């Protein structure tokens, strides 16, 4: 009968000893080690993202002159359109400010947008986050809202010197106040883990029973300013189905999110402005 090879179990023993040693470490040391690991890991992630940027740069270099001219023209057309829309937005903003002045309403909290590049993603069933290339030095703090062109991205969870980790709206631990477009009553949005090769999805709860949603008449869920983290009206997703809960008073339903959430490249962190502080500062 062959004897049990003691060497075969050694890795498990070592692992057990290491885990035990980690558990026995004082919490302060554990915290320090975790932060140090993140701080050391951040440059590596940043370097990796820069390498990816470089790769993209070289792939763009292969474009023909004709394609570049076409793209440049398209870009200038978009620029002109956005300038026009920015002008209209500014006019509306001033109109809104005048009305607020007339009605003696307080000015809502403003946000400075800190645009940052996404350097890494972590999409698991337990935790869904992205790492961005801006951090404490740029005025970013835990709890700040993060948005992109398609709407809400998530909330800053951890901040390091030059990077920050953003919890995505799809993360099971994410929760925010929202409301449906055209209605002011707040509802509760919660994240849901995203399966592989499936579109991102969340869940809306505490929806009053008088709402009705169907694939033909979906409801647009947008951010609520009441919570103080996001400005009002940023798109969150669409709701095509609502189901009445056990209380009969509220409904719940899935929220279909922007698929662009899974391929984020650039996001903007919403840094709340103090009253009388600087205006929007573009990076």
């Amino acid at each position, binding site marked *: 009968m062959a004897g049990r090879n003691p060497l075969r179990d050694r890795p498990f023993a070592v692992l057990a000893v290491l885990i035990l040693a980690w558990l026995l470490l004082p919490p302060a040391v554990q915290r320090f080690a975790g932060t140090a690991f993140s701080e050391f890991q951040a440059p590596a992630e940043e370097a990796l993202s820069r390498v990816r940027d470089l790769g993209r740069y070289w792939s763009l270099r292969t474009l023909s002159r004709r394609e570049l001219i076409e793209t440049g023209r398209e870009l200038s057309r978009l620029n002109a359109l956005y300038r026009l829309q920015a002008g209209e937005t500014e006019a509306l903003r001033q109109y809104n400010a005048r009305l607020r002045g007339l009605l003696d309403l307080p000015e809502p909290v403003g946000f400075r947008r800190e645009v940052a590049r996404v350097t890494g993603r972590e999409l698991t069933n337990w935790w869904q986050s992205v790492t961005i290339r801006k951090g404490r030095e740029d005025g970013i703090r835990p709890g700040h809202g993060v948005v992109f062109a398609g709407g809400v991205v998530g909330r800053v969870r951890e901040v390091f010197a030059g990077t920050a980790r953003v919890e995505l709206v799809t993360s099971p631990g*994410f929760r925010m106040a929202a409301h449906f477009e055209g209605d*002011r009553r707040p509802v509760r949005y919660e994240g849901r883990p995203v399966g592989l090769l499936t579109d991102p999805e969340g869940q809306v709860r505490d929806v009053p029973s008088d709402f009705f949603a169907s694939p033909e008449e979906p409801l647009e869920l947008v951010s609520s300013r*009441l919570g*103080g983290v996001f400005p009002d009206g940023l798109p969150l997703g669409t709701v095509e189905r609502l189901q009445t809960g056990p209380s*009969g008073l509220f409904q719940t339903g899935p929220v279909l999110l922007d698929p662009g959430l899974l391929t984020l490249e650039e996001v903007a962190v919403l840094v709340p402005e103090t009253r009388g502080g600087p205006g929007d500062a573009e990076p």
Partner: protein
Amino acid sequence: MARKRTNPTSGPGEANASLDVASRRHRRLLPLYAITGILLAVLFGQLGREQFVNRPEYLEREKQQTLRRIILPAPRGTIYDRDGRLLAGNRATFSASVFLDELRPAFREEYIRQVRAVRERERATGEPAETSNRDLVWRARMAVIRRHLDTLEGLIGRELDMSLATLRGHFHQRILLPLPLVENLTEEEYATLIDQLPKDSPIVVATDSARYYPYGPLAAHTLGYVVNQPEEVPEDLSGDDLLTFSRYGKRGKAGVEREFEADLHGDSGEEVWRVDPQGFQFERVDFRQPVVGGDVYLSLDAEVQQAAERALDGYVGAAVALDPQTGEVLALASRPTYDLNELTPRIPSPVFARINEKGAWLNRAVQGLYPPGSTFKPVTAMAALREDQVEPEETLWCGTSYLVGNRRFPEHSSPGFGDIALERALAVSSNVYFYQTGLAAGAEAIADTARVLGLATPTGVELPFETDDMLVPDPAWKRENRGEGWWPGDTANLSIGQGFLRVTPLQMAVVAASLATGETGIRPTLLRREGEGWLDRATRLPLPLSEEDREAIVAGMRAAVAEGTARRAQLPDIEVAGKTGTAQVYPGGKARTLAWFIGFAPVQNPRIAFAVVTESQEDGVEFAGGAQAAPIARAMLEAFFAQEEGVPGAPEAPFSPLVHRLGAREAVVQ
């Protein structure tokens, strides 16, 4: 070869002897073995008995010790008016609570910290601390709760507090239920907590429901209100010996909310939890979802009700409108009133005191007892006609007063009315005419007619606390209750609705409906009725009066509106029949005037009957049925007839299952 060594001193006989000793000893041990065996058998037998025979009993005891039940209240059903307008529904309320079992690690940590602090203090001072371990436990628990309250205060900017007594009470009586830290969060506070509290925080942002009355004070006395109280344990639950905790549910305390409690309440749900030895929840082993309460469709018409209440504003009194054909109550208003939304989710003490001070809890339409004054004259006329003591066309001399015994009873108009018949007497509300006809008919006949019209008994409308102290006096009553004889003056007073007579506005509306339809036994109902099958015909009887005589009374009431005392109740295209009344009461020794108006419309095909009463509040102010009460009735009539074309946009109300059930019950009676 080994040799066997033997003891030279011991022979075979000795060996046998030692064997004997052994066997003797063995024999001596036998009883011991037997006893041990018996004891073991008993032990194993008992063990087997406990394990197999008594197993169900132990399982039950284990269940009692480790299982706890939570009763979950069902959402309350909603109340609609006859056209499906929402009168009472549910609205969301938000609160922040903690489950105590999730705080146990924090309690433990805080307790250790407190113990260390005490020990350090003892070491520093050299004296033992006068703090018991129990005090430290509660201090630690309170400190943890305070930390969470501070967190909430920082987020919502509201000052929050909780007493140790509240925490102790929750631990001892409601440990499985969440401990509310802050209730009635505003939408902004709710959104702030959702946004800024971590999802894994022990503080839970919870939703609940509170009663919501979209029309505020509209029909407050009819709809009634609810109070929060621990949900009652349903009778049909299995395992009724389980320790049970009840969440706060709502229970109707007044009005329709109370009367239809069984229908509106719904079926409670339950959760059964396995708990640990400290009583904290461990795992949920059973769940039954609560079933929402049934909806109730009332006969009230929100438009007519609103018109009645607006017209009553500034008065103390009541207004009632009925469908005379079905008995459905279209409006039932009482003033002063209160805003139902102020009573939900809880009745604040200052609000209760304010309502109490105004005397607004009283539903004057069904609890207010008043002398009906001249609105009673049609009843006197009916009694005289029944007794053949007067003919409709017969004229009587009506001067400025009428002598009854040695007392002179005055006419309300100083020149008097001269020779007048019934129609004119009703139109101008002549007192002298009705003194004469009343005396001719006699008190017994008047009282009997009043009883036939339902004035001596409660109407039976589906409202709690309808008074049964109404009084239709007659000689027997006076003899029994006051020990006095009945005087002709009492009959004269009764003839014009004064004296001891006391009725409610709803009863007078029923009298008006009886005059409109020529039927008695009309039972007012607050439930919407549909189809002839639901009419409470079983109790209806024709008026004990010829049709000609009834028409004569109606002609008088028509004339009262067309050219008499009730001209302010005229409508452009609809003929109204009515009778005004003015009566005097002396509450607390102060003279107060009551202004009455009863009637129905249209005269030819009556669809609404009404009664209005208002009480004067100041001395020296002219107060009369035609001036104060008739315009209120006109407002109700205008609102009622304005809806002839239906209510645009109002949803079609489904047939109330509650009416189906009541109807089935009544069908059996028929």
